[in-house]
C-alpha cells in the first residue's frame, strides 16, 4: 500500500511553493487573523476585564445560560431523530425513501432567516397555530421553545447525515446475527448498533452542537431579541456591538470562538477514529475477498 502522503503529481518546486503560499495566505487572512483579532480585542483590558464583561452584566450572563440550555436540548432532539431516521433509511426500502433523504437536507439549503420566518408563520400569534396556542396559553415564538425549535431546524441534517453512510456501509448483518442469538430490539440497539456507530454519532453531535451554539439568523427572527429573556450568545454579541460596547461584545465572541476551537480539536480526534474504523472495515472486506 502506498502512503497516503505520497505526492500524487510532481509539480515544479516553484509552483509547489507558490500554491502553498497562496493557500497559507488565504487561510491566514480569512480564518486565522480574524479569529486572533477576536481574542486580541476581548483581552485588550486584560483577563480580569474580560471576566468582568462576561459575568457582571446580568443580560450577558443570561445569554450564556440560555445558549447552554437551548443548544443541548436541540442536540438531544437531533440525536434521537438522527438515529431513528438513519436507521429507517439505511435498513428499509420503501416508496418515497429518496425523497425523504432529500428532505433531510432542506435546512441546509434554506436560509436560516427564512426558516425562522416560517416558524413565526406557524407558531406566531397571527400564525396558523396561533389561536390554538393562545387558548392553551403556550408561548412558543419570542420564548424558549421557539429558540429550541429554530435551533433544531437548522441543525437537523447534521446527525442523520453522518449516520446514514456509516449504517449503510456496515449493513444489517450484525444486527440480524444479534437477533438470531436471542437479543431483544433494545439489546440489539444498545449492544450492537450503538457501539458500531458511536464515532459517527459523536461526530454528528459535535457538529450539531457547534452549529446550535453559533446559530444567529433563525434564532434572531423567533427570539424577538429581548435582552435578558430571549437573547442567546450570538444575539448578545450583536447587540453589545450595536451599542458600541466592543470589548464586552468581543468577550462574548471569544467564548464562542473558543468553543469553535474546542469543537475543531474534538472533530479532528473523532475523524481520526472514524478513518481508522473505515480502514479496518476495508481491510476486513479485502481479507474476505481472499486478498490478505
Amino acid at each position: 500500500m502506498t502512503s497516503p502522503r505520497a505526492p500524487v503529481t510532481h509539480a515544479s518546486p516553484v509552483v509547489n511553493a507558490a500554491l502553498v503560499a497562496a493557500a497559507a495566505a488565504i487561510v491566514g487572512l480569512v480564518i486565522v487573523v480574524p479569529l486572533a483579532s477576536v481574542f486580541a480585542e476581548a483581552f485588550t483590558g486584560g483577563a480580569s476585564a474580560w471576566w468582568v464583561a462576561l459575568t457582571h452584566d446580568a443580560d450577558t450572563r443570561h445569554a450564556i445560560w440560555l445558549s447552554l440550555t437551548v443548544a443541548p436540548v436541540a442536540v438531544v432532539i437531533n440525536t434521537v431523530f438522527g438515529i431513528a431516521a438513519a436507521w429507517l433509511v439505511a435498513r428499509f426500502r420503501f416508496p418515497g425513501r429518496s425523497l425523504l433523504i432529500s428532505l433531510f437536507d432542506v435546512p441546509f439549503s434554506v436560509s436560516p432567516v427564512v426558516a425562522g420566518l416560517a416558524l413565526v408563520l406557524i407558531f406566531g400569534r397571527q400564525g396558523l397555530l396561533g389561536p390554538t396556542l393562545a387558548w392553551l396559553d403556550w408561548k412558543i415564538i419570542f420564548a424558549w421553545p421557539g429558540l429550541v425549535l429554530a435551533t433544531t431546524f437548522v441543525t437537523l441534517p447534521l446527525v442523520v447525515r453522518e449516520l446514514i453512510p456509516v449504517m449503510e456501509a456496515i449493513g444489517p448483518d450484525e444486527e440480524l446475527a444479534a437477533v438470531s442469538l436471542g437479543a431483544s430490539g433494545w439489546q440489539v440497539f444498545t449492544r450492537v448498533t450503538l457501539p458500531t456507530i458511536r464515532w459517527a454519532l459523536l461526530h454528528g453531535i459535535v457538529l450539531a452542537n457547534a452549529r446550535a451554539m453559533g446559530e444567529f439568523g433563525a434564532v434572531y427572527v423567533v427570539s424577538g431579541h429581548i435582552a435578558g429573556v430571549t437573547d442567546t450568545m450570538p444575539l448578545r454579541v450583536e447587540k453589545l456591538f450595536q451599542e458600541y460596547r466592543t470589548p464586552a461584545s468581543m468577550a462574548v465572541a471569544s467564548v464562542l470562538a473558543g468553543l469553535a476551537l474546542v469543537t475543531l480539536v474534538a472533530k479532528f480526534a473523532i475523524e481520526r477514529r472514524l478513518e481508522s474504523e473505515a480502514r479496518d472495515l476495508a481491510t476486513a472486506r479485502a481479507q474476505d475477498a481472499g486478498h490478505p
Partner: protein
Amino acid sequence: MSIHVREVSKSFGSFKVLDRVSLDVPNGGLVALLGPSGSGKTTLLRIIAGLEFPDAGHIEEDGQDVTQRHARDREVGFVFQHYALFRHMNVFENVAFGLRVRKVPREEVRTRVDELLRLVRLEGLGGRKPGQLSGGQRQRVALARALAIRPKMLLLDEPFGALDAKVRVELRQWLRRLHDEIGMTSVFVTHDQEEAFELADEVVVMNHGRIEQQGTPDAVFDQPATPFVMDFLGTVNVFHGRVENGRAYWHGIPIDYPDYPHAQARDARVYLRPHELELSPVTGDGSPVAGHGQQAPSLLASVLRVTRTGALTRVSCRPQGWQTELHVDIPTESAQRLQSKLEPGARVAITPRRARVFLPDPEYAI
C-alpha cells in the same frame, strides 16, 4: 430437530424468489442447498432461520408450526456469509453474546466460551478483535458464536465462500468432522458443487426458486432428474439427437434409452459428461492405432488442445464436420501415456460410455 418446509413461496416486489418449495431435513442431517445465484437458496435458509417470513406456506420443526415465530425465539444457530462478527467486541465477547443476552451467570459464560474456543481451535485468541483475525479464524468464531446458545439446528450461508481455496478445503473437512461429533441438524447454502458433495449427506439443487432435485450426492450426480441438474453439476456437452425404439442416437451412435420404447422417432437432448467419453488415437484414415483397439461405434475428431486440470486432463477436440468443440476428460496418467498421439491436429476416435437423454417437455417447445 427435523425441519419440514411446506409449499413455501416468497416474492420481493414482482420477483418470485421461492415458488412453492417443499423440503424435509431429517434430524441430525447435513443438507446442502445448491444452486446458482438468484436461485432462492439463501432466502429459503433465512426463512428457515426466521430472518424472513414466507408469503405462503409453513415451516415445521419437529412437527410444530413455527412459520411466524421470530428468529429470536427459534433457537437456531446462523452463520452469515461474511460472518457478521460484532466488530467492536473481542472474540470472547462475540462468542459470549448469545449467553449474555440470556443472562447466563458469569462463571458459566466463561466456562462455555472457553470450551467453544477450544472446540473451534481458537484458544488464547479470546482477546483479539475480529479485524485482527484471518478469514478462516473469523469463520470459526462465527461458528462458535452460533453454537454457544446450544441451538437446535445450525444454518450456514455460503460458509466457505469468502475463503481461499486451501483454507476452504481444510475447514470443510473440519466442519464435517464437527457435525459428526455433535450431530446437529445442519443446512448450508453453497453454489459450489464440490463443497456440497464433499460435505453433505443430501444435496438439494435449486433453480429459479424451485427445487430441481433432492437426493444423496451420488443420486443427484448419477441420476440427474432434470437437464438443469445435469448441466449445473459439472461440465457437460449438450447435443441435439433423436430417440426411437429404446435407443437414442447421437451422430449415428446408438445409446441405450429404455425410457422411450416407442417406434415413433422424437427429437431429444443428449447430455455427455466429459469424463464419460472415451478417447483413442487413430491413424489418418480412421483405423485404430496398434495397441489401442476400439470396436464400439465412435466419432472421429481432431485434437485442438490439451489442458491439464489436476488429476484429469481435458482434451478439446473438433469432430469432423463440426463447428463446435467437444470436451473429453481422461485421467492425466493416460494422457501422459498418449502424449505424442494427442498433439494438436492428431486424430482420435470418441466413444460415449454413458449418456443421459432428456426429452423436451411436449408442452413447451424448446
